[in-house]
């Protein structure tokens, strides 16, 4: 029997192989060390290095593509696709993983007696994420999503905190498995109707007859809703604040950025099959528009009423999903694809950077595994820790979308892509949502800079976390100032998927 793939294919999935192999190191060392927790070298430095090498390997694939002038490559008889999107998002996921490992090492809410298992699960969640990014086939996408989600369910339950984390883990697990079941049910219907789950083949299959097939529509809506759960769009968002509140903060930083990034890339690949262009699918477009509007409003209005910083950021991440969906609407129409997709990707990247920074700030301030940071805890932050307070302010301003930051340009590209496709009223609601959001993003700022009272004391020893806050804040400003080259780069990367 001849194998239908080249051994060369393995070269391109090196990031995944590196991550998995390195993830075994801390666990194996622990096993051979009579179940004693290994030291810093195995629990921290090796996985960090692994994540960085994986990011480098992704970048290497990108460099090879650039030098050879090829735009995309199919691997393993079409199961995976390597294109600009997979490479760029892959680098970002690996970097997020590295940052999360730093946070996890310094956070009090991660059980230090189980750090090696936590690192193992984090790295395998990243393996799942890379698979979703590369997936060219709905089945591969599903397996990747499951790999990522199962690792995350366990990680949520492994927090040091006892009550909320168990509730969050069970809630996330039950609801998440339900969503996954709906997703795979939808994939089965799509296979039954179209005879394929392979995305490039699906593109050629989609036509008016297929779209009048009830089975196909049922499958498509199930797949859309399964993915909508993962990115917490409106009717499926209610798990987000509870799960984020119950999970340890480093993990939330990883979930809020990584999971959203890859699930939106999966949605992008699905919508890039141009399935929503047809007249028969107009009702989907209607539903998605309303979902975007209500998600933005619900996220922003609920965040107004939160005093708990983590819940506030959780609702804000719900609202940001709504903004990204506006960009996806532009992708679904026939001539705004490249514009819409590159604005979506640019926004996702900027969202990942600023959200990761904001959650690292929470992780930096938490004194023990049980501390729930309130906005009033930030009082007098600016006088005690001026640079940290300044960096957090930059991140918040970027989340709110105030001009020189990357958040503004992200929203600008998104909204202009949607306007050029004629989604005026959705964009109007998006702008209204951003205006509302300014209020709750500015509240911590006011408390930090204008109040002299003492809030919570700062842990001085978390150097890594501190540096991550600085790095993300600087990135937010730098990419904000020179956003156009970045945007053009993403645009050239995105052309390969159409």
């Amino acid at each position: 029997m001849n194998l239908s793939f080249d051994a060369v294919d393995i070269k391109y999935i090196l990031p995944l192989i590196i991550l998995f192999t390195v993830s075994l190191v801390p666990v194996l060392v622990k096993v051979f060390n009579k179940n004693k927790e290994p030291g810093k070298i195995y629990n921290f430095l090796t996985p960090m290095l692994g994540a960085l090498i994986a990011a480098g390997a992704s970048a290497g694939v990108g460099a090879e593509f650039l030098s050879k002038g090829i735009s995309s490559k199919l691997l393993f008889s079409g199961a995976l696709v390597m294109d600009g999107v997979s490479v760029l998002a892959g680098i970002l996921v690996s970097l997020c993983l590295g940052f999360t490992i730093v946070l996890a090492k310094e956070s009090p809410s991660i059980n230090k007696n189980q750090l090696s298992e936590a690192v193992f699960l984090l790295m395998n969640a990243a393996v799942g994420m890379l698979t979703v990014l590369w997936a060219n086939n709905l089945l591969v996408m599903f397996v990747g999503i499951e790999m990522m989600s199962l690792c995350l369910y366990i990680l949520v339950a492994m927090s040091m905190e006892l009550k909320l984390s168990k509730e969050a883990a069970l809630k996330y697990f039950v609801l998440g498995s339900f969503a996954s079941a709906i997703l795979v049910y939808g994939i089965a219907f799509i296979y039954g109707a179209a005879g394929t789950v392979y995305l490039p083949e699906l593109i050629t299959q989609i036509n008016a007859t297929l779209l009048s097939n009830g089975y196909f529509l049922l499958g498509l809506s199930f797949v859309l809703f399964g993915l909508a759960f993962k990115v917490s769009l409106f009717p499926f968002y209610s798990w987000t604040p509870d799960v984020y509140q119950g999970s340890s903060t480093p993990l939330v930083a990883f979930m809020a950025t990584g999971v959203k990034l890859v699930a939106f890339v999966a949605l992008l690949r699905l919508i890039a099959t141009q399935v929503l262009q047809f007249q028969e699918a107009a009702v989907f477009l209607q539903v998605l528009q309303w979902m975007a509007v209500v998600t933005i409003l619900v996220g922003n209005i609920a965040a107004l009423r939160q005093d708990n910083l983590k819940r506030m950021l959780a609702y804000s991440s719900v609202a940001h999903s709504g903004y990204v969906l506006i960009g996806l609407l532009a992708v679904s129409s026939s001539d705004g694809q490249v514009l819409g997709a590159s604005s979506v990707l640019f926004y996702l990247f900027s969202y990942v950077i600023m959200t990761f920074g904001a959650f690292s700030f929470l992780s930096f301030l938490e004194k023990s595994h049980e501390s729930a940071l309130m906005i009033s805890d930030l009082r007098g932050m600016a006088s005690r820790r001026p640079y940290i307070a300044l960096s957090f302010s930059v991140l918040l301003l970027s989340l709110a979308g105030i001009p020189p930051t990357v958040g503004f340009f992200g929203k600008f590209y998104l909204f202009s892509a949607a306007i050029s496709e004629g989604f005026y009223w959705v964009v109007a609601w998006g702008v209204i949502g951003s205006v509302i959001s300014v209020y709750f993003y500015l509240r911590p700022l006011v408390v930090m800079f204008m109040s002299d009272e003492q809030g919570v004391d700062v842990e001085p020893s978390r150097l890594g976390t501190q540096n991550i806050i600085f790095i993300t804040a600087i990135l937010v400003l730098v990419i904000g100032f020179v956003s156009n080259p970045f945007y053009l780069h993403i645009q050239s990367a995105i052309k390969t998927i159409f």
Partner: protein
Amino acid sequence: MEAAIVFYGLSFFMTVLSLGVLFNPNPIMSALYLVLTMIGVSLVFFMLDAGFLAGVQLIVYAGAVLVLFVMVIMLFDLKREVYTFSRGFFTRLLKVFTGVVFLIILVKSFFLVPETKELLNSSTQMTTKNLAGLLFTEYIFVFELLGLLLLAVAIGAVALSRIKGGTHAE
């Protein structure tokens, strides 16, 4: 004709057995009814010429998964769990409500797609050998990835059993 008689007979028994799973107050008996239902499902697969799936259904579901179920049932303090989940007027109302909603969805979905269609590619015979060939060529990546998934989940389960506060934290 014979196939139809066997199929409807099987379906009838499976329905009765699955009702037994639902209505039996003793969870161990429920699990045993579930074994019988699984065997029925594997027979249906066998009738559809899916020998491999039938075998997997028997080995994995009727064998491994059920043993796991029974073990977990023995580990839990079931009286307390039963008490927590089956009291109160509101809970009962919610159960009935969800049941009715799902029934409506089920009936509606039957009317949504009234016509029956031939399965695509129904002519190709899916033997175990073909399946294995596909698994190790076209789907090799997913197949290997599922291996990683199982490993991650196994280690995760062990880690979960050793978390601070145990699995039944107050």
